């Protein structure tokens, strides 16, 4: 299967990409690694008239020390996040979640920015960024703005990005002393998570992000509150699905997903030493 015909525009800079988005409006789509978009286009679930390629914006491929955070360029590939020594030591949960995305071939192409901008609740990476309380940077015609990860995901495959905005950077707080766990439940090796859990424990605070438990990447605030008030891992995990509206599909019913969330969060908290 091949995508519907489109016009191809290769952006030479972030500003060029923003200008192209301004010119073509909702007929245009950015393409980074293409590993969410090309599958959709092959099935004709997406058929943009213009494809604006940001894959060559090398100045947005980096991992930098930002003082209290690690700054990662939006076009950084999963592979380069996964093996980066600073990401591993300062926010190891992100390195681990990234290493669980698809397979080697997928991680050689897919980008951190694309994984977030796609707004897919089934993606592993947003759960880690929720647990780590990351911030993202968007750039548009009027300059840059920061968006807290909690404000970024607005609906199924929808984000707070404006039509003419580009995601440029992801800022992940350094938590070298935190303990963490990434739990992914699937049936076959390379599959997406049926449910997944990112768990971070930093002193008496916890961060818990869930995969595939709602129409958006889901923060389990109830578990975080329980941990903050001193609950055991087992007791806190009982609240994992509170407030979530998980989907039902061939892999799992709503009840089964709620059950998985409780089990995975408990395992995660225990593995993180809580």
């Amino acid at each position, binding site marked *: 299967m*091949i995508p519907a015909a*489109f016009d191809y525009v*290769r952006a030479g800079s972030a500003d060029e990409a923003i200008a192209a988005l301004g010119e073509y409006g909702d007929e245009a789509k950015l393409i980074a690694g293409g590993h969410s978009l*090309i599958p959709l286009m*092959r099935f004709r679930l997406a058929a943009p008239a213009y494809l604006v390629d940001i894959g060559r914006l090398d100045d947005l491929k980096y991992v930098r020390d930002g003082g209290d955070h690690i700054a990662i360029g939006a076009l950084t590939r999963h592979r380069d996040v996964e093996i980066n020594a600073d990401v591993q030591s300062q926010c190891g949960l992100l390195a681990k979640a990234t290493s669980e995305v698809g397979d*080697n071939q*997928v991680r050689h192409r897919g980008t951190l920015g694309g994984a977030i901008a796609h707004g897919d609740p089934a993606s592993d990476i947003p759960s880690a960024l929720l647990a780590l309380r990351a911030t993202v940077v968007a750039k548009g015609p009027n300059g840059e703005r920061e968006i807290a990860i909690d404000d970024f995901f607005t609906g199924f495959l929808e984000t707070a990005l404006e039509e003419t905005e580009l995601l440029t950077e992801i800022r992940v707080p350094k938590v070298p002393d935190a303990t963490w766990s990434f739990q992914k439940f699937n049936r076959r090796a*390379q599959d997406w998570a049926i449910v997944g859990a990112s768990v971070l424990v930093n002193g008496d605070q916890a961060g818990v992000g869930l995969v595939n438990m709602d129409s958006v990447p889901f923060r389990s605030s109830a578990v975080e509150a329980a941990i903050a008030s001193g609950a055991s891992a087992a007791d806190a995990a009982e609240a994992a699905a509170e407030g979530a509206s998980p989907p039902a599909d061939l892999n799992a019913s709503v009840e089964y997903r709620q059950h998985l969330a409780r089990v995975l969060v408990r395992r995660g908290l225990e593995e993180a030493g809580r």
Partner: protein
Amino acid sequence: MEVSVTVNGTSQTHDVEPRTLLVHYLRESAGLTGTNIGCDTSSCGACTVHLNGESVKSCTVLAVQADGQEVTTIEGLANGEELHPMQQAFHECHALQCGYCTPGMVMAATSLLDEIPNPTEQEVRIGLEGNLCRCTGYHNIVKAVLQAAEGNA
């Protein structure tokens, strides 16, 4: 639009539609049919080639994304009549039956050894999770990759 790709060391230029997938470019424009297509869902890995030295699924890359880049296909591995050590190991370990998955397996496996020169059996299994084989049960494929890695020791 014009797309120039260095395929197996030779620069080629073809006029293709922007929507052309790299795998179709390789098979139809470049005439290299060693790279197979096994699925519609980016799952099987039969289409795996190296893009700038790293394994990618060529059904999930647009030819225009590879413009100006280097691609190696299964045809580019052997040195004349002399098989690449990974091909030799697949041959010796009987790591194929119908052979449909083999070009992709070999390309994924060579890329894996570039990243992990001396992998454990578990690392080989995880490293090849993007490649499906309907015949062998994987056992001899894993054996072949480990044998090829011995040459790296």
